[in-house]
């Protein structure tokens, strides 16, 4: 048995060493998509090719990309199913709203306010991730999934009974479960289920794009670091990882907390893009939506999840011409795409057709190329 463990670990180590080049490639593609997307969209908006509908989605697209990348750190790289990502997004979003509202009078330079809010959001979300992560990371698979789902719901449930307001001195007042007396409507910051109202919108496309780039930078660096390799080794074979002395809990917690912090930042950016923000936005469906990005983009595939996030954000909007059948079409597209990308037989057929029409076809029998992407199911 020991022999097998050693073998598996050493093979992985070798693969890891070989992967150096692959990482560079992955980073190049990911940053390339981001930069090319940014330039194209800016050009499109400037020349008027892109309508308001799509322009209005620039910030959400970036936010969803960042969320997908951060969730990929947990689901793809650390190999844990999380169904509560929207909870961290909520924590970040509402922290961000409170911070920007408090600073609004004293700090008039919006980008500075945004950066402070982002940092605060990251800290609060990281704290939430830490508190949640410590007890639950010992759980396995679907049990972890349900607990993250539960935590997401608990965070949202609490948001419904939390009230923040600014008193006449501009100080923040907090109350639990009931409206704050003596605060004018305009000075309410967060009003339970009504959520944040009267937020000054300071999110910009450039800011959101930079945030996505930052998220990408953090996640790619983690993936490519010693810790990242340890996390992936644990994902692929937990027992083997433990046996060579990796501290499983520490590494899992690290991935979880970083992912939560990044989701908090993305949530903060999202919250700054709308004048109002209700807790109901961060329900189970949003968590699932982010998970869909990750799975559709290829679990563990960073740039894949970015593309999936962008496409799936645009898709329901692009389907508006189907009017009543819009969401039905969306559901069908989702199912069909999932089957086409994951069913081995269909995938092979598509691959065969593609290789025939592929203009860059290489006459080589070496097709072991990028099989390392999808982790094999460990027994």
């Amino acid at each position, binding site marked *: 048995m020991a022999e097998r463990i050693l073998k598996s670990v050493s093979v992985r180590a070798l693969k890891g060493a070989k992967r150096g080049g692959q990482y560079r490639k992955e980073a190049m*593609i990911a940053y390339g998509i981001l930069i090319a997307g940014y330039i194209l969209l800016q050009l499109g908006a400037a020349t008027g090719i*892109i309508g308001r509908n799509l322009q209005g989605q620039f910030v959400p697209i970036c936010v969803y990309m960042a969320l997908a990348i951060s969730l990929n750190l947990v689901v793809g790289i650390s190999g844990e199913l999380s169904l509560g990502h929207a909870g961290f997004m909520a924590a970040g979003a509402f922290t961000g709203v409170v911070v920007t509202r408090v600073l609004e009078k004293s700090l008039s330079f919006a980008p500075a306010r945004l950066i402070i809010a982002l940092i605060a959001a990251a800290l609060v979300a990281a704290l939430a991730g830490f508190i949640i992560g410590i007890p639950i990371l010992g759980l396995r698979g679907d049990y972890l999934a349900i607990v993250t789902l539960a935590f997401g719901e608990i965070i949202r449930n609490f948001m419904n009974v939390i009230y923040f307001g600014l008193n006449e001195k501009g100080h923040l007042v907090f109350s639990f479960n009931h409206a704050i007396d003596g605060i004018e409507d305009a000075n309410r910051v967060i009003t339970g289920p009504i*959520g944040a*109202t009267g937020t000054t919108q300071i999110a910009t496309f450039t800011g959101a794009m930079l945030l996505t780039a930052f998220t990408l930078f953090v996640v790619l660096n983690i993936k490519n670091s010693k810790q990242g390799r340890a996390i992936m080794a644990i994902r692929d074979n937990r027992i083997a990882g433990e046996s060579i002395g990796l501290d499983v809990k520490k590494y899992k917690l690290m991935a979880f907390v970083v992912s939560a912090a990044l989701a908090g930042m993305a949530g903060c950016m999202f919250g700054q893009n709308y004048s109002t923000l209700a807790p109901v*936005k961060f329900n189970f469906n949003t968590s699932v939506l982010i998970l869909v990005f990750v799975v559709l983009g290829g679990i563990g595939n960073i740039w894949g999840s970015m593309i999936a996030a962008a496409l799936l954000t*645009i898709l329901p909007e692009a389907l*508006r011409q189907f009017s009543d059948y819009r969401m039905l079409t969306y559901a069908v597209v989702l199912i069909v795409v999932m089957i086409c990308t994951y069913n081995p037989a269909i995938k092979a057929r598509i691959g065969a057709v593609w290789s025939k029409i592929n203009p860059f076809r290489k006459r080589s029998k070496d*097709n072991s190329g990028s099989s390392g992407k999808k982790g094999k199911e460990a027994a």
Partner: protein
Amino acid sequence: MKKTWTKALAVALSCMMAFALAACGGGSSAGDGKLHIGVIGPFTGGAALYGNAVKNGAELAVNEINAANADGLQIVMESQDDEHDAEKSVNAYNKLLDDGMQVLVGPTTSTPAAAVATECEKNQTFMLTPSGSSPDVTAEHGNVFQLCFSDPNQGIASADYMAENFADAKVGVIYKNDDNYSTGIFNKFKAEWEAKGKKVEAEETFTDGVTDFSAQLNSLKNAGVDLVFLPIYYDAASNILTQADKMGYAPKFFGCDGMDGILSMEGFDTSLAEGLMLLTPFTPYSEDAKSKAFTEAYQEAYGELPIQFAADAYDCVYAIYDAFNKAGLDPNADMAEICEALVGQFAGDFTASGITAEEMKWNEKGEVEKTPKVCEIQDGKYIEK
């Protein structure tokens, strides 16, 4: 390694196709001599009921106007789904702008309405929401108006009516604490009720998706509550009425405008709602000629009784149409110009008469001023009090 690149290329191609799909259809159709009205509401998802009512009500009004003056001003209506979500609602609004909308009727629900109101102010679109009743919708937006009662006003009106007519009642409340509308009414109601030196004996809440109200009803029953205020929508209320009936608890129930529609629910046993009182601007059982005509036309077109949302939307379209004519506007005018003229009307001495009220006026906050009607259900019919 080639494989990665070809894959990337494939993905990039599909991206471009999606973008093209999203970008096309953006041709502005304004300037064709017709007035373009946009409608936003949740047509799918859990709140679809309200969005569809608004869409149908507005459509009915548009069809009537178009049929009535074939040679005069024609209205083109386009509706977009927002799934009761602020983000989607802003997207829907932008989509409508792409398609040449000049005036907005909507969004239907409060949170999306508040988000879109900010955008409307930025772009100078005239916005009249039929049912986004939170004060956050109109707050500090000069060009945003409400046609429904605002939530606080309903809370105050309910408290006043109860204090006058049920002075000795022990009052309890069940409200939906993750809902903008419900908490908005409740908070103001409570403040007003306590300002009258009275006490809310029991406050019970529920959240989305809750169907079992036995614990809440039990608490009310044990607190000796004999007047239950239900500032909630009728779907949850019908569950409450059914369960109260089953447990043999029969207090007086009092609802707000969200309660309207309870009688027209398919399969609803109207005896459950016997004695239910509600504060509503519209009932489909009204004897008023205009309301009657509307109800009949609506039933013929959509096969169901209209709820108050539909009536509000119907009035919205007529109010805009009247104000538009009164201002003497040209349908080819651009959005900001129309907005300015309509704001001049609505903020001025313009009054609109419709099926939800006569002589509606708007105050400086953009809230409508009309008197609520209190109805009681007797023998499956609304009786105005």
